[in-house]
């Protein structure tokens, strides 16, 4: 079946403090995630992660324990400032864990909560368009991938 959570990790040849700064400081996040970033790094603090082409997505700091752990709610509602409010079922949770390993750092990321994203079945049908907007960013590349690899590959 389809996994409910995504777990990935990587070993980095850099001290944990440096990896921490890359994950949490706007000038770095604006390179590995979006095109630019504004970050209020404290519990409940907002992250505004902006792509030049697509506009912003919003995260909120859930928990922070430098330089070992930080987690964020990735708000999936849309791209208006009003969508910055966290509510039931409108976010996935992204957790970064940093462990020292020799001279380097083992970085693990877990994204979960896909299952909690949608509301009732009525809401699903009714808000199909709204939902579509929410996923647009994430699905941009997927769309290309699917049209190349799946739709074109022998579907009747």
């Amino acid at each position, binding site marked *: 079946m*389809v996994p409910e959570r995504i777990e990935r990790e990587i070993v*980095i040849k850099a001290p944990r403090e*440096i990896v921490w*700064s890359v994950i949490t400081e706007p000038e770095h996040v604006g390179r590995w995630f979006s095109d630019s970033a504004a970050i209020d790094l404290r519990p409940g603090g907002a992250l505004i992660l902006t792509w030049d082409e697509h506009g912003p997505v919003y995260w909120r700091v859930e928990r922070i324990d*430098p330089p070992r752990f930080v987690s964020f709610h990735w708000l999936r509602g849309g791209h208006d400032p009003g969508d910055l409010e966290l509510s039931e079922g409108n976010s996935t949770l992204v957790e970064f864990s940093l462990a020292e390993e020799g001279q380097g750092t083992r970085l693990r990321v877990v994204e979960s909560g896909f*299952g909690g994203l949608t509301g009732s079945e009525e809401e699903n*049908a009714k808000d199909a368009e709204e939902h579509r907007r929410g996923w647009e960013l994430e699905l941009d590349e*997927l769309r290309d991938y699917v049209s190349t690899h799946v739709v074109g590959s022998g579907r009747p």
Partner: protein
Amino acid sequence: MSRRGGDVDELWAAVADPTRRRLLDVLLAQGEATATTLARELPVTRQAVAKHLAVLDRAGLVESGRRGREVRYVVRPQGLDLAARSMASVAARWDQRLMAIKEIAESVARTEPTKVQKEVSR
């Protein structure tokens, strides 16, 4: 483009719901089922099952056939495969991001290790 199974967004919305995921599992195990038999396996009403099935049907994850008075459902493997691939694509994006984090961190460590360490440990 055909609506059925053609819309990845709808597909993802369909599998994101825990009840529907459970429903798909049961349907996979049973091979073929009606809303009534599925409702026996799940803590929801037959009406709720029917609505979930309609969402899954629209997303191309199940297909239905009428047999007499009954509507029977089966899982569409192509739809499931697509859903699994879409999650795999999210995972692949994290792999890309982690690679980017690694590159940035290692280049910072090479160029200015002491400065950054001091800054962060305050």
